């Protein structure tokens, strides 16, 4: 008889299975109750927007906090946020923001100009060590304050003459200034009293970001945070435009594995995914084109040449390597619809500016240049190691395609060196590489953002290349206000990059993700920004 006991777990399990029926999915329930379920890619390190360094946390943070201005759902138009209007002085240096009289924190306190001034100074304060303090550097005195050369907050061009007027004074005209203010995180206001109560204004990782303690001024407030499981935010009744927020709740799920995310979408757990496996694009295109979303992203992939290491000290070799790449074929064979070939560091259309295209595929010229540099057919070329970030899917595909193109078109054998992410990062920071597969996600929809990568001394200038004429043109682009003059400066920089090739742009990444048809008002845009007031859920018949 004792052997029957072994059956117990089975019968329990059978019972459990028997009790399972097709249940109402999270998406179906959410459609009914206006609860949006979103894939959030990874677990946020913290919900303090100031030191936030992660693009993926931006959407989540934008539901909890609101800057002076926000971006519309098209990702381009700037809309009033905590400020209902603003004036710009004729020289483009002084921005006067008029805050809403009815703007409130989620605990009912009024949002004041002093809150903004304190928050901007917090980002700049060396005591916080904020990674993105540099976004505020257009402000007079900001860089000196952030780098410890000045201890006086009054030296920073921030004024709060009364509770509802906030003034920023810039060093140079920056037509992109409103874009930066709408930028994820660093320049959003914090509720000083609640931050101080939880450990200190300049302390990282204070407990104020926990549910029940987080005070924000965004359309939602934090209700639950279960690390690596779910973050739930609910409508903020004190939000100045709460009447137009139709969603009741939003749940963010940190789904690191894109395959798991796609399965969760199919099982009806997610309204919108953060991304999707490239291998599924064709399947959705065939079976559910209405759920598949592909849109350009302001993310660029490029090769970085270490110009201090042979053979890439010679501009002819750099140019040869770039000319030997058939970008159309490369993208078609590896990314398919998730990329578009580009030849310039500035993605066409960035901030309304389209640079003249750089040279494309020209194997004959590439061979000629390599021979001219003293390496005909690749003979005598010092060994070239191609450093990669990881060895997963697309990275390896890209690397092997490029390897084949260089072998075929230049007769050069390039060896591939995949590195673990942090090893890769420290390799590139210490310039311990020869050739690198690199990438950059724009924080700002302005040509300035990618072009800064080529300025001398920029911490993200991986190629170690520098050029005085380029730096001068970059400074000029910052100093002028008129679009035509700025574009002229961009043209100059672009021409220098095309001539000098410190970087060889490869493709612009497209965001591919899945979205249920019941989600309305969601618009794919290049910076992945969301105007929460536009969204509502309703199943399509």
């Amino acid at each position: 008889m004792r052997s029957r006991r072994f059956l117990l777990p089975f019968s329990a399990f059978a019972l459990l299975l028997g009790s399972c029926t097709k249940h109402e999915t999270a998406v179906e329930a959410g459609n009914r109750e206006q609860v949006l379920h979103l894939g959030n890619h990874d677990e946020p390190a913290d919900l303090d927007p100031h030191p936030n360094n992660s693009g993926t946390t931006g959407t989540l943070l934008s539901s909890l906090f609101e800057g002076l201005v926000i971006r519309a759902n098209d990702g381009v138009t700037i809309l009033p946020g905590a400020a209902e209007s603003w004036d710009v002085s004729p020289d483009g240096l002084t921005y006067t923001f008029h805050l809403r009289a009815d703007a409130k924190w989620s605990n009912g306190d009024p949002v004041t100009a002093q809150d903004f001034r304190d928050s901007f100074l917090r980002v700049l304060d060396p005591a916080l060590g904020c990674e993105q303090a540099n976004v505020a550097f257009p402000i007079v005195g900001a860089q000196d304050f952030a780098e410890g050369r000045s201890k006086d907050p009054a030296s920073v061009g921030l004024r709060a003459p009364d509770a509802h007027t906030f003034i920023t004074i810039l060093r140079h005209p920056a037509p992109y200034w409103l874009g930066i203010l709408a930028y994820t995180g660093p320049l959003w206001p914090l509720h000083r009293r609640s931050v101080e109560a939880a450990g200190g204004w300049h302390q990282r990782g204070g407990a104020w970001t926990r549910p029940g303690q987080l005070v924000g001024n965004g359309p939602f407030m934090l209700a639950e945070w279960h690390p690596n499981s779910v973050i739930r935010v609910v409508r903020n009744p004190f939000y100045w435009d709460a009447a137009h927020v139709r969603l009741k709740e939003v749940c963010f799920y940190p789904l690191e594995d894109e395959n798991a995310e796609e399965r969760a979408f199919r099982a009806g757990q997610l309204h919108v995914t953060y991304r999707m496996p490239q291998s599924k694009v064709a399947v959705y295109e065939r079976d559910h084109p209405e759920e598949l979303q592909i849109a350009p992203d302001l993310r660029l992939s490029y090769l970085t040449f270490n110009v201090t290491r042979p053979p890439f000290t010679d501009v002819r070799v750099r140019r040869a390597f770039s000319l030997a790449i058939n970008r159309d074929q490369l993208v078609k064979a590896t990314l398919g619809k998730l990329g578009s070939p580009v030849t310039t560091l500035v993605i066409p259309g960035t901030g309304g500016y389209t640079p003249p295209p750089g040279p494309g595929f020209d194997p004959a010229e590439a061979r000629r240049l390599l021979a001219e540099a003293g390496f005909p057919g690749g003979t005598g070329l010092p060994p070239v190691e191609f450093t990669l970030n990881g060895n997963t899917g697309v990275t390896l595909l890209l690397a092997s395609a490029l390897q084949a193109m260089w072998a075929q078109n230049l007769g050069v054998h390039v060896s591939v060196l995949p590195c673990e992410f942090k090893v890769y990062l420290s390799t590139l920071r210490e310039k311990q590489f020869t050739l690198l597969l690199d990438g950059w996600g724009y924080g700002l929809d302005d040509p300035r953002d990618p072009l800064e990568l080529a300025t001398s001394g920029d911490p993200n200038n991986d190629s170690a290349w520098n050029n005085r004429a380029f730096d001068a043109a970059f400074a000029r682009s910052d100093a002028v206000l008129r679009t035509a003059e700025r574009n002229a400066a961009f043209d100059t920089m672009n021409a220098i990059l095309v001539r000098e090739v410190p970087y060889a742009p490869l493709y612009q990444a497209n965001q591919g993700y899945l979205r249920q048809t019941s989600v309305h008002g969601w618009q794919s845009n290049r910076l992945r920004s969301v105007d929460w007031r536009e969204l509502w859920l309703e199943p399509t018949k």
Partner: protein
Amino acid sequence: MLRFIARRVLETIPVLFIIVTATFFMIRFVPGGPFTAEKAVTPEVMRNLERAYHLDQPLWQQYANYLGRVIFHGDLGPSFKYPNRTVNEIIADKLPVSLELGLLSLAIALAVGLTLGVLAAVKRNTWIDYVCSSAAMIGICVPTFVLGPLLVLTFAIHFGWFNASGWYTPIDRVLPSLTLGCVYAAYVARLTRGGMLEVLNQDYIRTARAKGASETRVIFHHALRGGLLPVVSFLGPAIAGILTGSFVIETIFQIPGLGREFVNSAFNRDYTLVLGTVILYAALLIGLNLAVDVAQVWLNPKLKFE
């Protein structure tokens, strides 16, 4: 027996000390640090960051401070990656999830594995044996990252009975525990079969049968005790692994367990979290190995606590 256990527990202290020291210095010598991020920061900011986390102190001093905090306060420090949580908190939050998943999987593994193993041994070289052994072989060969998605496709997406991922309601426990349990069940089945076959040929089993003991009594009372020895020695490290979480299962099913933290902390260079999880894992492993030794003496009268 108490003396044996006491001696083993005392031996644990230098072992843990060596593990902590080696891990502390090894993780520091790996390229990249907790603040090496995609977008580089200026040297000024990096200095500010390192100062905030006392990473600017000499390494020996950081090591001494760390040891002092762990030994005298049981404080494993703040996490570098998740600044608003301490390592103690993360472990307290995640370990129960991994424990729950582990215990459920273990129950499935033992129930299924022992049944299949005993059946296969008793009905040796019949179709029952072949079916059980093949099932076990398949279980060993099919990795969790294949079995997991297959179960999800069938039961979550096709039938719509379960969530495809998450750890929200009791029903979310079914698919991950089944996936993890099946793999261990396969090992348990193979080991049980082997152990039982060896024991069933022994003289004392023949004696038991000769004295007229029923077949059920022979198998479950006399044979199983000896037949389980290899399973028990396998279970020590297996339980430690199963309880501290499975990175693959936790990733496939989006489970907020310790396994993901353990692996990701190394990728994130989250020095304190790496050390905290290593200490926990090491202590568990040592503890369970001791438990296995005790159990083996108890199961096998030939062994003594020496």
